[in-house]
């Protein structure tokens, strides 16, 4: 039987899920609302979950404390905390927003339900697995190097005591063949990550902080969704202006370069990366490129198209191009892409004008179920 509190608890989780679903667009467009908590979960502020009552608002930071100090000395405690906690006889919890913790799987599930995303059919039937050996017990045969001294000694001692050959004045214990015990192991199959996302971003001068924020939010959700679809997921990050390089995640979102834009440079690096590390036979590869659509020259654009058609697209599950609107970009690149690949199924383009459109863009990218 399920205990009462578990019923209440699952009801509570259900309500939370409902609330997140309802406000998903808001949560998505305001990326700062979702804060990573511990590994594999995030915390989401949810003020509406609190039961409203007629209660006192903030009393403007006024309160009473106890201890040493001169007027003007700061007292600790977050002013946001207000008069919360047990300090006050009332039950006023100040302005502190209630936060709930949600696991990433749950979040992905909610996203999938709300956007109506199809499950992804992984490419290639063989699932990649590595094997891991673990010592689990004892057995009677095995290599000498795995002999367990303690267990063997115990067996020998027991035998000698039972046979009456044990002499307490001269406690010599001699194991014979039957006493020997060896450590045995079990082989556990371990799923290995078999999907990779390669993010590429234009960091030329025309991409501002707001554009990067959009990319950051979008990549978080794409990550979350794809992670729920594969047993393991790796990410790689490439930034480019006129030239491209592979960078760490932190660098990816923080770098700001100036200067021109050569999109083909990124595609080249991406291609090299795939060739070096990710065999398309075994990996599900996703590539997403975000830019403001301003490329250096028409020549470079045609290089890009060529690279995509000949090298990248055949190897990728999907190539996503997200064009973030910026005041400087011409936005030409997306038109060129659409013109060059009118019917290519695994190339998805999406225009993201502002944060409110992130959700639609995510749907655009992921609705294909590839």
């Amino acid at each position, binding site marked *: 039987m399920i205990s009462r509190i578990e019923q209440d608890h699952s009801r509570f989780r259900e309500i939370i899920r409902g609330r997140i679903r309802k406000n998903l667009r808001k949560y998505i467009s305001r990326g700062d609302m979702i804060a990573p908590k511990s590994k594999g979960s995030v915390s989401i502020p949810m003020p509406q979950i609190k039961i409203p009552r007629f209660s006192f608002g903030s009393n403007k930071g006024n309160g009473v404390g106890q201890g040493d100090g001169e007027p003007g000395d700061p007292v600790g405690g977050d002013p946001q905390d207000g008069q919360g906690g047990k300090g006050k006889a009332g039950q006023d919890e100040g302005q502190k927003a209630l936060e*709930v913790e949600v696991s990433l799987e749950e979040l992905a599930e909610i996203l999938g339900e709300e956007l109506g995303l199809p499950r992804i059919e992984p490419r290639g039937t063989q699932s990649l697995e590595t094997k891991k050996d673990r010592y689990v017990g004892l057995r009677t045969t095995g290599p000498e190097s795995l002999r367990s001294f303690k267990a063997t000694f115990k067996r020998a001692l027991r035998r000698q005591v039972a046979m009456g050959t044990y002499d307490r004045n001269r406690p010599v214990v001699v194991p014979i063949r039957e006493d020997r015990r060896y450590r045995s192991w079990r082989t556990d199959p371990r799923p290995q990550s078999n999907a990779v996302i390669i993010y590429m971003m234009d960091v030329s001068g025309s991409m501002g902080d707001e554009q990067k924020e959009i990319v950051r939010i979008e990549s978080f959700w794409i990550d979350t969704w794809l992670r729920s679809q594969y047993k393991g997921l790796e990410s790689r990050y490439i930034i480019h202006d006129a030239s491209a390089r592979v960078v760490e995640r932190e660098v990816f979102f923080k770098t700001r370069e100036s200067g021109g834009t050569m999109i083909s440079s990124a595609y080249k690096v991406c291609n090299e990366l795939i060739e070096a590390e990710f065999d398309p036979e075994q990996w599900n590869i996703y590539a997403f490129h975000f830019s403001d659509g301003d490329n250096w020259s028409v020549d470079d654009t045609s290089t890009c198209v060529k690279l995509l058609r000949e090298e990248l697209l055949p190897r990728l599950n999907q190539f996503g191009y997200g064009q973030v609107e910026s005041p400087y970009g011409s936005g030409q690149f997306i038109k060129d892409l659409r013109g060059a690949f009118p019917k290519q199924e695994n190339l998805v383009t999406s225009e993201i004008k502002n944060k409110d459109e992130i959700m639609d863009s995510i749907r655009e990218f992921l609705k294909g179920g590839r």
Partner: protein
Amino acid sequence: MSSLPAVLRDLQAEIEGYAREFGLQYFTQLFEPVDYRQMCEIASYGGFPVRYPHWRFGMEYDHMMKSHTYGLSKIYELVINTDPCYAYLLEGNSLVDQKLVMAHVYGHNDFFKNNNFFAHTDRRMIDVMANNASRVRRYMDRHGVAAVEAFIDVCLSIDNLIDPWWPFRRAQQRESARAITEPEPPPAEEPGRLQHSRGYLDRYINPPEFIEAQREKRKKEEEARKRKLPQRPERDVLGFLMKHAPIESWEADILGIIREEAYYFLPQMQTKIMNEGWASYWHSRIMTTRALRDDEVVDYADAASGVMAMAPGQLNPYKIGIELFRHIERRWDKGRFGKEWDECDELVERDRWDRALGLGMKKIFEVRKLYNDVTFLDEYFTLDFCREQKFFTVKENRRTGRREIEGREFAKIKARILQQLTNFGQPFIYVVDANYLNRSELLLGHRHEGVDLQMEYARDTLRNLERIWRRPVSLLTVLDEKPKRIRFDGSEISVADEREAFRV
């Protein structure tokens, strides 16, 4: 209790012996050892084994389990006001901790039994709550979980709108029903009649037609007043809605359940400082003078100081409570009270003042019987105590947004503490008129005492009230020092200016 291990049973016998020796009067005390998961479960249910199903208990549980897992907090003791008195011990606590908790619990138990504000609580609340729970479950079977749960949400949203004096009035009414009927109020003076000494001019000074008209008018007013609902502003909003709102019988029953439980928990909110102070006083007293073994001192001191710690800029009820009880005890031991003491302003003499009366113990037992937090602080929070405990007021620095020490002015400190405690920390809300504008709208009034309402919650609460009343609901309040009327008409909230603030 049979489930209590022998070690703890012996401990209980020992501690109970000390409690008896010190003169505590308690209900039969039952301890139950539970693991931390059970502890969190019981704590989410407010200390009761069975409550009606509701998600907020799950939320509490979620929160407690998490903060327990991360080691942020630990529930030490959990004791409920019932006869016999149940308390839960966390399995795996050290014996010193268990001792401390037991001593603490005997303090609470004594307080529950003897404090006057608990006099009208139902001591068989475990059964009552279990019955309530099974009724709610039945309604859920009949009307659906979602509908019932949504209605519980609505009721909980107004469960702080109760009248702290109602339990006493109810008791009094029962008394007076048995007593002789109250004497009739003296007949009201003839309306509009002027006093004079010339009887023969009476017809001219007080023309009969005029007097008659006045009489009619008075009668009409009287009738109108009688028709008005409620006749005077009513604080028991829950009770009022139960009687007068157009709700179905199951809804009324649920409203009644929420109200019953709210009244049950009310005294605990009214006596937080006293209750914790009293229990802390006794655990400290019992442990340090009797129960503690030499090798336990350090662990005890560690645990006890954790309980008494003051977060900077905040008040800890345990700390204020215990210090105030100790202060009172010292004062009455030394005879530092009464006219002579109050009028003495020689600092040196006051310092040396000791009449060796030894009345302290008797006094604190009396205080624990007669007071609640507000009256306790009002009477015994003295200038000396304030100085001794180094209280200060805190103000937010507008420029930096930092909270800073404002000053150590006694009157201000005391006023602020009392303000926080008044009406168990909740705003005063009254039902003013159930037929507002003659359109059977509900009008509530908020008696403004200096702090505005939290507007967002106030709006949502009005929505919930409309759900019960099924007609527009308005609330008179004050926002930024301007009188306002907030109205929810079923589809939208509107705020209008009022000429004057609501007063009772």
